[in-house]
């Protein structure tokens, strides 16, 4: 049975629990695979390689494991078979026992039944025995009973004997069973030992096999690795050699470079050294020089120090002297002060007396003025008379000359003669239409103020006049002003004002920068005036006519026809203005400011006085204009009347700009000259023109 069981198990595939070696190997394989995987190598290739490499040992392990598992299983079966057999035996025994027991019970029951039957039979016979009376029968019956009882007993005993026999058999069986059990146990032990031996042997064998396989594999691996290693080493050596060569080459190269560099550096060094040495020498020389200079300076300074000390000493002496002098001067000062106080007192008293004198003298002066006005009127009358006489004379001479000319032309030269038309031929009386030329600045101021407020034109002008100082004859003044303004009527006041303003705004370059700065503080109107003043000064526009010319010049651009229509008047006037201008200039300079203020004032007073005197007849005789006041007087009066206050009040800063070339004739003298010069001017304005500079120069 066992053999059979073992027999058919032999071909069974050896499948059993994994052997420990196999498991370890598998684990190692897995670990190795994992490591390789982690190393990021070509996993598949490696795995394939590993499979191939591991195959031998793996196969060996698998084989061994299967063989051992089979052996183990077979051995276990062998061992346990005993137990199974024993179980079976026990079962069989139990079955037999049960059967026997049944039989026994049946047998016993049968026996009991039969025996009870017999027993009953016997007991029933006992009753019969009681009935028995015959002893033989009774004996017989008793014998019979005895026999039956014996039989019963015998049967019982037989049964007992049988049972005892059975018991003995059982005992024997028990002994046999024990023997069998011990045999079984022995067998079991034997088998176990055998199994152990066998397994041990097999395990050893398989271990050896596996070890061999591993050894072989290991050797192969080692060889492979050694080969690889050697190859790697060779490669490494070759590479090393290569590197060495490369290194050598580099070293040589570097050495060369180093040498080169060294030589270069040496040269550089030498040159640098030389240069530096030169520098050092230079510096040393400089140092020497500096030292010398220093010593020199030191000596100088020492000398200076000594000099200064001496000077100091001298200074102390001088100071003491000065102090003494100072003291002396102080005492002198005190004396002088006392003297000053005395003198002041004295002078105050003098002043008082002089003031009284002055009042007296002004009264005298007024008297003189009244007298002078009287004389002026009479002089003017005389003048016109003289003028008319001279004019007649001159006209007669003229006519003569013209006749002569006509004669020369027609008769001598055969030319048609045309009588030239001279205005002075028709002129009667002194040149009365000769307009009093106003100062350009004054005019400008007028124009400006007039235009500023149309309604206040007249009043403003009156005021001006009053300010000028012509207290008498306000009406005459206005009339005169009306007359004077006439030239301006050609040009609208507004335009004139515009033009003037333009000039003042645009020609700032003509004004001195210093003045400009100081002008900033003034009002707009005043500023414009001041500017114009200085501009006129720069352009040498002094008179009214100059101003008109200027305005005209500007207007010509604008209104040509106007200029044309006025052309004649202007030309005719032009001559007058020019002459007037020139004349005025000569006289205008008279209020020249070279003279002390007092003189100017005096002149102003005189001027205004004469102006005032002169104006009256002028105003009266203006339409006729024959008995025109002397131009010089008028000319002198106007600037005196208008310019002086200006000079005094406003344009003290601009005084120098008013200086006119050449020494100006003093007005009194001028006025004195006036009559003298009048003689010449009566002759011809042109001549006068030529003469005047000479006169003034002479003066």
């Amino acid at each position, binding site marked *: *049975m066992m053999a*059979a*069981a073992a027999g*058919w*198990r032999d071909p*069974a*595939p050896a*499948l*059993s*629990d*994994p052997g420990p070696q196999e*498991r370890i190997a*598998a*684990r190692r394989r*897995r670990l190795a695979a*994992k490591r390789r995987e982690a190393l990021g190598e070509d996993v598949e290739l490696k795995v394939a390689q590993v499979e191939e490499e591991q195959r031998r040992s793996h196969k060996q392990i698998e084989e061994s494991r299967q063989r051992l598992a089979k052996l183990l299983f077979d051995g276990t*079966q062998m061992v346990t*078979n005993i137990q*199974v*057999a024993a*179980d*079976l035996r*026990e*079962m069989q025994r139990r079955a037999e026992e049960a059967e026997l027991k049944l039989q026994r019970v049946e047998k016993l029951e049968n026996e009991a039944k039969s025996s009870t039957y017999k027993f009953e039979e016997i007991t029933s016979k006992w009753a019969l025995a009681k009935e028995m009376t015959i002893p033989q029968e009774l004996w017989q019956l008793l014998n019979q009973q005895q026999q039956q009882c014996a039989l019963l007993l015998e049967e019982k005993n037989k049964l007992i004997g049988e049972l005892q026999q059975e018991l003995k058999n059982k005992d024997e069986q028990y002994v046999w069973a024990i023997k069998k059990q011990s045999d079984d146990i022995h067998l079991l032990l034997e088998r176990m030992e055998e199994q152990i031996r066998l397994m041990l042997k097999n395990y050893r064998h398989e271990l050896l096999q596996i070890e061999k396989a591993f050894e072989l594999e290991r050797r192969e691996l080692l060889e492979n690795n050694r080969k690889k290693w050697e190859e790697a080493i060779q490669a490494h050596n070759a590479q090393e050699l290569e590197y060495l060569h490369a290194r050598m080459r580099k070293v040589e190269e570097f050495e060369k470079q180093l040498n080169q560099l060294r030589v270069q550096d040496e040269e550089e060094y030498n040159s640098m050294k030389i240069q530096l040495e030169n520098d050092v020498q230079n510096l040393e020389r400089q140092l020497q020089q500096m030292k010398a200079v220093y010593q020199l300076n030191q000596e100088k300074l020492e000398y200076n120090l000594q000099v200064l000390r001496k000077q100091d000493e001298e200074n102390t002496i001088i100071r003491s002297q000065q102090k003494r002098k100072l003291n002396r001067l102080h005492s002198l000062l005190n004396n002088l002060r006392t003297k000053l106080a005395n003198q002041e007192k004295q002078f105050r008293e003098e002043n008082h007396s002089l003031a009284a004198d002055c009042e007296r003298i002004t009264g005298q002066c007024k008297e003189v003025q009244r007298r002078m006005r009287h004389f002026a009127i009479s002089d003017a009358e005389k003048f016109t008379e003289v003028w008319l006489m001279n004019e007649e004379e001159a006209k007669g001479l003229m006519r003569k000359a013209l006749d002569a000319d006509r004669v020369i032309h027609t008769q001598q030269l055969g030319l048609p003669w045309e009588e030239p038309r001279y205005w002075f031929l028709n002129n009667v009386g002194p040149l009365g239409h000769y307009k009093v030329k106003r100062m350009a600045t004054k005019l400008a101021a007028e124009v400006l103020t007039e235009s500023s407020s149309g309604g206040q034109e007249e009043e403003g002008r009156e005021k001006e006049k009053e300010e000028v100082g012509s207290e008498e004859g306000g009406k005459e003044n206005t009339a005169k002003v009306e007359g004077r303004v006439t030239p301006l009527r050609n040009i609208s006041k507004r335009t004139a004002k515009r033009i003037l303003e333009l000039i003042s705004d645009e020609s700032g370059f003509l004004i001195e920068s210093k003045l400009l700065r100081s002008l900033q503080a003034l009002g707009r109107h005043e500023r414009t005036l001041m500017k114009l003043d200085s501009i006129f000064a720069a352009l040498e526009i002094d008179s009214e006519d100059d101003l008109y010319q200027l305005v005209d010049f500007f207007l010509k651009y604008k209104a040509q026809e106007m200029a044309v229509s006025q052309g004649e008047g202007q030309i005719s006037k032009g001559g007058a203005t020019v002459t007037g201008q020139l004349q005025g200039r000569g006289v205008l300079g008279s209020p020249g400011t070279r003279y002390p203020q007092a003189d100017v004032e005096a002149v102003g007073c005189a001027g205004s006085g004469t102006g005032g005197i002169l104006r009256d007849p002028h105003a009266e005789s203006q339409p006729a204009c024959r008995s025109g006041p002397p131009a010089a007087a008028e000319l002198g009066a106007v600037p005196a009347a208008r310019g002086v206050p200006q000079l005094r009040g406003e344009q003290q800063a601009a005084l120098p700009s008013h200086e006119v070339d050449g020494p100006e004739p003093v007005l009194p003298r001028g006025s004195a000259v006036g009559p003298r010069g009048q003689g010449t001017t009566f002759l011809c304005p042109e001549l006068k023109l030529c003469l005047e500079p000479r006169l003034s120069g002479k003066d």
Partner: protein
Amino acid sequence: MWASAGREGHLVSSRTPSTLETRAPTKAQRRGPPALAFGSFGSPAGKCGGDSQAIFLLLLLKEKWVLSRMQQSAAGDRSTAVPSLYPSQASLTADSYYTYRVIEDPEWSLATVPHLTELCLQHIVHNFEKNPILDCLLPEHQRKVLDRLSTGLPLAVTANLISDEDYWKRCCTERWQACDISNYGDSWKQMFFERHLENILKCFIPNTTDPNQVLELIPLCKDYVRKLEVDQFLPPVQMDQKEESDDLSNTGSDFEFGEVSIHHYDLGVLITALPHLEELHLTYGVKDCGMNFEWNLFNFTHQDCCNLAVAVKMCHNLKVFKLTQSKVDDDKTRLLVRNLLDHPCLVELNLSHNLIRDKGAQAVGKLINHSRLQTLDLCNNQIHHLGAQALARALAENSTLTSLNLRLNCVEDKGGEAIGRALLTNTTLKSIHLGSNNLSEPTAMLFSQVLAQNTSLTSINFSCNHLGLDGGKQLLEGLADNKALTEFNLRLAEVGQETEYLIHQIVWANREAARLGSLQHPSAKPI
């Protein structure tokens, strides 16, 4: 005298006691017995602090010894074995005595003088019983002491003090020949105490042996005993019975005579005092009785059973309970089961080789579903189909039991079919043993169905049944699709060699598959 010497810190002389005694008997007498010349230290501090004192005393001793030598004859150098106290000439030239000694005994060297610590340790070893010093020693000194300790020391001293395995290994190997430590949790100490306790219990004779013998041991071994394997319980001795023991076998009436005090040792006290007890293997019987066999030697009484049941109930950590070959019948089984119901830990129950019948089996069936039993062994009992049916009913509902052994019972086809039907629904049982149960074809038919359906069973044993050829074929058919079964024992089951071979093939293939599965499974874990 001895104690005083100890307290004074009298230290070691380098001479052996015998020489000292021969050389200077007077001194020796004064100083006490030479064997006790070692200082006894109450504490290790004494050992540490005694060095300077020791030197001083050594000098004293030296002097005395030299004097004694001088008193003796000039032939004092007869024994070269006598060690000198003076290690070298150079260090001791100042002393004339020393020079004298050096001339006398030039071979002497310090190497023969043991270290002071060594001597102290020796002393500790010698007096370990009275004065056990171990924990306060340095590790290397502990080691030395433990190596030298006698195994005969009373357990009261050693049990709770020494935990060193080597010491207990010595104890075990000296006492028993075969020592398999793997059965005792790989601990020599545990092994020692368990076997010691087992021996005492085996030899315990109620009413004769002093119960204190066990009780005294309890506090010593309670921390180390985890398993108790007692295969013998001696009955109480009855003097009169012993005398007429020859007749006992023949006279049945005598059985009742000793019935009164025939109970065995009550384990209750012991078991409840062992907090770590996990396994309990008991056999109420007498071993090696030989020709003194008596039936009443093997009597597991009701009282015994009661005591045991109560004790086991109290033992909450018990995991394995084996009560074998103890004539446990239905009543006792029911008693035991009643006490084991809802036990918190019990995992394995072994009641093999007893007299359990159907009622007992029914009780066990009840127990299956009222505990955490995983392994149940009822082999070699008298369970018939009724009991098997009860077990099958329990099994159908159970979800803890993994192994059931019903070998050598009389389950027969009725019971077998019931169990088979239960296995159609059960999904936890892995192993079932139905060997020698008078099973036949109907059971085989049902089990072929089970094999086709059940996927948890891995091991079936049908050995020694009468399944017959047809039954075998049916089992083969059922097994055709089964992948779980790895063990199928059909020896002596009359199924025919061919069927058996084919079944073996299938099972072998399944086993291989299971092996591979288990290989892959643990491999997945470390990753």
